[in-house]
């Protein structure tokens, strides 16, 4: 047996080894650096240059219409969120593809992987950015103008979302719970007006105190930080939302519409007020429709669009669509049986859209038509129905560079044309209940519904290509007469004649927020499918 002392004398060469063992395990100082994702910005970096407030505007703006280029997935996102959810239901466009053997959104066999995306996009991309701005500016009196702008974009984004689904887990968003209860569309709309009013007030105070100041110029892709334009946008949005609830709450609709139009900054009046998302500040915005139409070959002119625009010999037509080889325009009807994609690509009109075409959130033309509708309803809209209607058409012509609309507005003969599907005669629409007979020329003597159809039809042409807004207004007013689907694979859940009224709540909500979504279904007042009407969808 050797003693401990002897051990150490004899084995002193072990010392460096022991030391090494200790050293090995004490140099963990760099672990924090190692465990921080090197490709991402840290909290500390986010404090530089006011990044933590500014950059999230960019995130919000790029997700209202989902154009942010996720690596390789930007266009597909737009396709399922906007193109195959709104655009194909609005009559603007028709799908040339036959996904899942034709059992897809276009034939009312709603694809879970598609219809949940718009919801996810709003809650995973827009709302978290809004929340980040909210928490940064909370309690900072000097930063309330930033929060006001975030509120406006939030309403712009979320009204599109609620108009698709109805109730949303809206007020409790970001309160930290893993499950979130839903709120009724009525309550959500009420908050929209409140939030917009508050934002308009905050920004009005700001621009009066600091005229010409554009603190968010380097992040704002819409107006380059011009708050006056944002106030006008907020009023315009308020007018749009007011009109949306006209059948659900006429009194409030009139009140909000009049306050928007009569606000000192008012609503948009010229095309330079239009809200356009476009490249700037080093951010490349490219229009996904260009890829979806020309690369994917998945979308073409809609049959309803062909019927109206060719019927009206609309001068805007060449600005919206391209002629096919036969020097004509051909549209695809939504909800048809396609056995061979090739039959529905080349013979049909592509969209006149380029990669650089800005994405239009809202335009002045739309405001004139909303005001015209208000005026028809007897509201104080700063003009007669006729002048507002005609200004709307002319503003739309100006927007596309289509010249004077005088002759067009005088046309009392042209009507939408019967539609022929060159690839399958079974999809054609001849004169009858599905074909509108509305003309262009304003006639003061017309009945209210005729006037509404005329205004809504022209607004529909002017709002192109925002199919979601057009689909919402179609649901609200039934105008214009969009061709119904030929093939209805909804299993009886969606009525072919009244057409699809909403999108179901996403499967992910059922899987992870089951109790929450059940409150949403309760507030919906009907089954969670595409046939149930939303709160504002109350036209008798």
């Amino acid at each position, binding site marked *: 047996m050797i003693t401990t002392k002897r051990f150490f004398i004899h084995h002193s060469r072990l010392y460096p080894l022991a030391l090494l063992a200790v050293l090995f395990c004490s140099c963990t100082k760099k672990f924090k650096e190692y465990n921080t994702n090197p490709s991402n910005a840290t909290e500390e970096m986010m404090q530089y240059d006011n990044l933590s407030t500014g950059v999230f505007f*960019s995130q919000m703006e790029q997700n209202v219409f989902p154009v942010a280029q996720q690596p390789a997935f930007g266009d597909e996102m737009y396709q399922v969120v906007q193109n195959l959810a709104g655009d194909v239901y609005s009559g603007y466009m028709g799908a040339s593809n036959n*996904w899942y053997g034709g059992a897809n959104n276009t034939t009312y066999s709603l694809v879970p992987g598609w219809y949940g995306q718009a919801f996810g996009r709003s809650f995973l991309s827009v709302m978290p950015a809004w929340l980040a701005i909210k928490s940064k500016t909370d309690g900072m009196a000097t930063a309330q103008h930033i929060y006001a702008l975030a509120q406006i974009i939030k309403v712009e984004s979320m009204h599109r979302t609620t108009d698709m689904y109805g109730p949303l887990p809206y007020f409790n968003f970001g309160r930290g719970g893993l499950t979130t209860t839903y709120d009724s569309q009525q309550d959500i709309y009420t908050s929209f007006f409140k939030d917009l009013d508050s934002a308009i007030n905050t920004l009005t105070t700001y621009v009066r105190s600091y005229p010409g100041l554009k603190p968010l110029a380097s992040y704002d892709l819409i107006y380059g930080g011009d708050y006056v334009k944002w106030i006008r946008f907020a009023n315009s949005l308020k007018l749009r939302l007011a009109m949306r609830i006209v059948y659900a709450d006429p009194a409030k609709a009139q009140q909000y519409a009049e306050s928007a139009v009569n606000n000192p900054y008012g609503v948009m009046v010229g095309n330079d007020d239009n809200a356009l998302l476009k490249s700037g500040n080093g951010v490349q915005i490219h229009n996904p429709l260009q890829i979806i139409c020309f690369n994917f070959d998945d979308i073409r002119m809609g049959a309803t669009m062909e019927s109206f625009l060719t019927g009206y010999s609309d001068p805007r037509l060449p600005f919206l669509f391209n002629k096919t080889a036969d020097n004509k325009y051909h549209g695809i009807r939504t909800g048809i049986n396609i056995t061979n994609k090739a039959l529905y690509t080349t013979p049909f009109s592509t969209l006149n859209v380029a990669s650089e075409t800005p994405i239009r959130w809202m335009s002045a033309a739309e405001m004139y038509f909303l005001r015209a509708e208000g005026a028809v309803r007897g509201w104080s809209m700063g003009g007669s129905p006729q002048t507002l209607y005609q200004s709307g058409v002319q503003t739309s012509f100006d927007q596309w560079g289509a010249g004077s609309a005088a002759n067009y507005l005088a046309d009392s003969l042209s009507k939408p044309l019967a539609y022929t599907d060159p690839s399958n005669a079974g999809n054609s629409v001849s004169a009858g209940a599905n074909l509108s007979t509305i003309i262009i020329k304003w006639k003061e003597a017309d009945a209210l519904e005729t006037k509404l159809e005329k205004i809504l039809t022209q607004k529909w042409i002017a709002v192109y290509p925002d199919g979601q807004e057009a689909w919402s207004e179609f649901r609200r007013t039934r105008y214009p007469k969009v061709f119904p689907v030929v093939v209805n694979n909804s299993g009886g859940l969606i009525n072919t004649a009244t057409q699809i009224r909403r999108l179901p709540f996403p499967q992910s909500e059922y899987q992870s927020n089951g109790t929450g979504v059940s409150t949403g279904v309760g507030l919906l007042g009907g089954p969670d499918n595409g046939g149930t009407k939303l709160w504002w969808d109350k036209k008798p």
Partner: protein
Amino acid sequence: MRKAALSQWNATLVPFKFFPYDGSLKKQASRMRRLTKTLLIMKLIIFFLVAGLLNAQAKGLSQTINFSGKKVAIEKAFDAIETQTDYSIFANKSLMRGTRQISVSVRDMSVTEFLQLIMKDQPIDFEIINKTIFIKEKAAAVVITRPSQSFLTEAPQQEITGIIQGAGGQPLEGATITVKGTGTTTVSKADGRFAINATSNQVLIVSYVGYQTVEEPVKGRSVITIVLQESQAEGDRVVVTALGIRKKTKALTYNVQEVGGDEVNKVKDANFVNSLTGKVAGVTINTSSSGIGGSVRVVMRGAKSLFGNNNALYVIDGIPLPNLASDQPNDIFSGAGATGDGISNINPDDIESINVLTGPAAAALYGSQAANGVVLITTKKGERASKFKLSLTNSTSFFSPFVLPRFQNEYGSEPEDYNSWSTKLKTPSTYDPKDFFQTGTNVTNAISLSTGTERNQTYFSASTVNAKGIIPNNEFTRYNFSVRNTSSFLNDRMNLDLSAMYITLKEQNMFSQGQYFNPLVPVYLFPRGDDIRKYEVYERYNAARNFKTQFWPYGDMGFQMQNPYWIINRDFFNNVKDRYILSAALKYSLTSWLNVQGRVKLDNNETIGEKKYAASTAGLFASPAGAYYNNNIQTKQTYADVLLSANKTFSRDFGVSVNLGSSIQDAQYKQTGYGGFLLSVPNLYTFSNVNSTLASATQSGYHDQIQSVFGTAQLDYKGMLFLDVTGRNDWSSALVNTTAKSIFYPSIGVSGILSDLFHYHSPAVSYIKVRGSYSEVGNAPQRFVTIATYPILGGFPVTTSYLPATGLQPERTKSYEAGVNLKFWRNKISLDVTAYRSNTYNQLFNPALAPSTGFSSFYVNAGQVTNQGIEASLGFNGKITRDLTWSSSATFTLNRNKIVKLLSGYTDKTTGQAVSVDSLSMGGTGSYMMALVKGGSIGDIYVSTLTVDEHGYVVVNTSSQTVTADANTYVKAGNSNPRYNIGFRNSIGFKNFSFDFLVSARLGGVCVSVTQAIMDRFGVSEASAIARDQGGAYVNGYKIPAQPYYAVAGGGVAGVGSMYVYSATNVRLGEASLSYHFPGTFFHNRINGITIAATGRNLFMFYNKAPFDPEATANTGTYYQGIDYFIQPSLRSLGFNVKIQF
């Protein structure tokens, strides 16, 4: 008969002259010594350079003995040799009974001297062969009998030469050859050759430790080949365990299964892991459907982690390999451009042996990486004191699809319609989708060289793999180079082991499944009324563009379909990998009972993945000019450890061996990628031609580090009872911002040789060992999740998608196992049975959050999964007649997995709301979904259904005679995992022939085929033709029109899952080989022998009801299992091997 004829033929030849180099070697000796010294200096410089580079220090084992003992059993001295050196000792117990106690004290004595010292005046003697010391009875003084002249006329003495081989044809060095009844004796050399003088009527006795002794009559021959059969001396075998620590099997307290290197080379696969299928109990192996060289899914004792990695850890020569697994397809789209995992890069010819540690206790020394079990690979090194050895092997295989769905060709299609629902064709179409496949080939050539002296050995190998898949233009090439040098210095006190491997490989168009770039979708569904030959010319001159563009008038059909010939000829997925692995180990003996070793290993891998889509590829993937993507991944792993080993004897009965160590493992990963649609010049695949406004630029990386200290102690009592304790403490960089600064992982085990303890030895039951162990190991937390950061998208930071996690802990698996090892009938039959139970808790749970939370997921420690099961192997090793041998082994695997809980009782910090999650979807195809449900198992498959009424009958619309799909109801179809796995391996030897075959069976489990669903919808399946022939599809026992029925059942995104669930049970002839060994004598001993073999893999399905091979998987991860979405069929291979040994 044949053998005798052969011998006669050989007998007429001039005997080969042995050992011609002895003289010249002596002359060179002094020069060699000088050279050795220079080499030593050079090697040391290299070693310290590497070590210094890594900022680590290392030391190593000696070849000398330090021993001090008074009146101790001689076995103690043997134990000292085994622990202080890398020599192993083989001894027969009965021999030891006659030995006396020894009292010696030596320092730094060479092994030989020490053995001579302790065996002085003992009835035993020793012999050192290779690295093994054989203890034998002391022979009487050797008397070389010189026959007197008078006997000459009777039976003349002649020199008999020959070769001693093991059953596998390998030469046995050191076998003792004695002429019966005389003292004439000799020992076989490294190449197995011997020469002895005997008369033609004498008998040679050949004995070799570990082998059965053979008596071979000379019968007038002058050249004799003698094949020895192994006699298993179980318990004395030495196996490699965690960290490369060698242990005797009897001392193991857990299950370790050994697979010899030849087992993975008999029927060679580009990824050798495939060759383990059916040969190891407790392991489930699934081959990736990405073809030759693809990844393999290896899960031991069931999946334990809900969200983490469940694949086994691979360890080469004691050091863990970095995880080079790539993203796996998990939806209906992806699957193109697959790549093999890290382990698939290894040259199977470099493998000496594989030890599989299925249980966490065995792997506990690997701490936070150990929960999933370990595959330990020991690579070859140069052989001691062997002269130049060279072997050349060629292995050539031909592949065809193994299991294909059944097609129809009776019903045609309408023009321009992709559906084959038209009228019956007058003459059936000659179209057969099988014709699309080509005969795949794999030609593997390997060379290995081994040379060495007593102190310095070198091994070199090179191999080439040139393979073509069954899908044209799928190619795989790999070149491996390996060099290893082992040497000992300072009177064998210091050992140095240096090795370098270089691997370069190319993969082209590996695809596993999915819609994108999958030629099988258009091929299987091709309309039977059309003629596919029209599309074989896949591109046509496009006058407007002045080059050839894709010809495919059908469009993408919503499946992203393209002309299948275009896909394989114009859309390319190329991966190029360069990998080098450098390692150095230095072992040094400090004292008589203590040595230290240090090891460092660098493993660097660079992968460049390119995707090139030619102009006129489908618009989803490319602009009219095409598309180009380039992705570069660099992985660097540095590992270093020091290991201090002590071995001490306290008294006659007790021994302690202790290993203490410390390690650092540092892994760095860097990925950069750029690419997108091409802007102007068609088919010019350069960055500058990419449309920069639409380009995607990606960059990611990580740096993980684990620092550890660990120790293991083993206490043994009389070599019969063992107590094994291990502990490891991990400091992991992923633990930053968690509650734990470091994690401790312990294990304890006991084993006892009952047959020795109770002196129970009967001919029927020759060996009884019982063992039990308990361990706690982990699965590291995921990196980055504890520190909130903001990803950058399009130049601006965006909010994170997960709720930042705090207070996380690594997952922990507590497991215990108990087992017995039994030997019957003089070790002819062996049975190993292990029962285990593991409980994995504190799971790093990453449930998807509802989008309404603003996050897609969050991290929390929750979830508990248990696995219990049995793994057993039964072996038989027998000699039926003198020439006929049969060895057989069966493995049995049973595992039951249970999700005890998911998230329960979690209180949300901000709201105080109690949250629980009892089910979670893990994704799928829409018709098929893997879901985690409390009380269920990992791998549970849920499927969508047709609308059924309250009695369970399918609802049929009375007027339209159609059924409807119920998209919102999922029912459980079963589990993707087997209930049992059985492997039955046989090896029959007859003279120089050897026939091996493996039958593997998987019982239980289900799978879903979306391929079948979609084929039914398009009317191209045999089922759809049968339904038409019989006038409709049967629903509720009644016929309804076939097309509308299949439009629903096979419709939607991926059909109605419940209609396409199949039993995954299958039984196959997994491997077979028939080989013949031409001994060296056949070639005048100019070479050492040639072995030729005909081989096959996946030869025949005895039973399989699924329309695909259920053992093939598109995803080698945990989920997306048991699903077929146009997966590439698994491969049936037939081929041959030739091995030439010099």
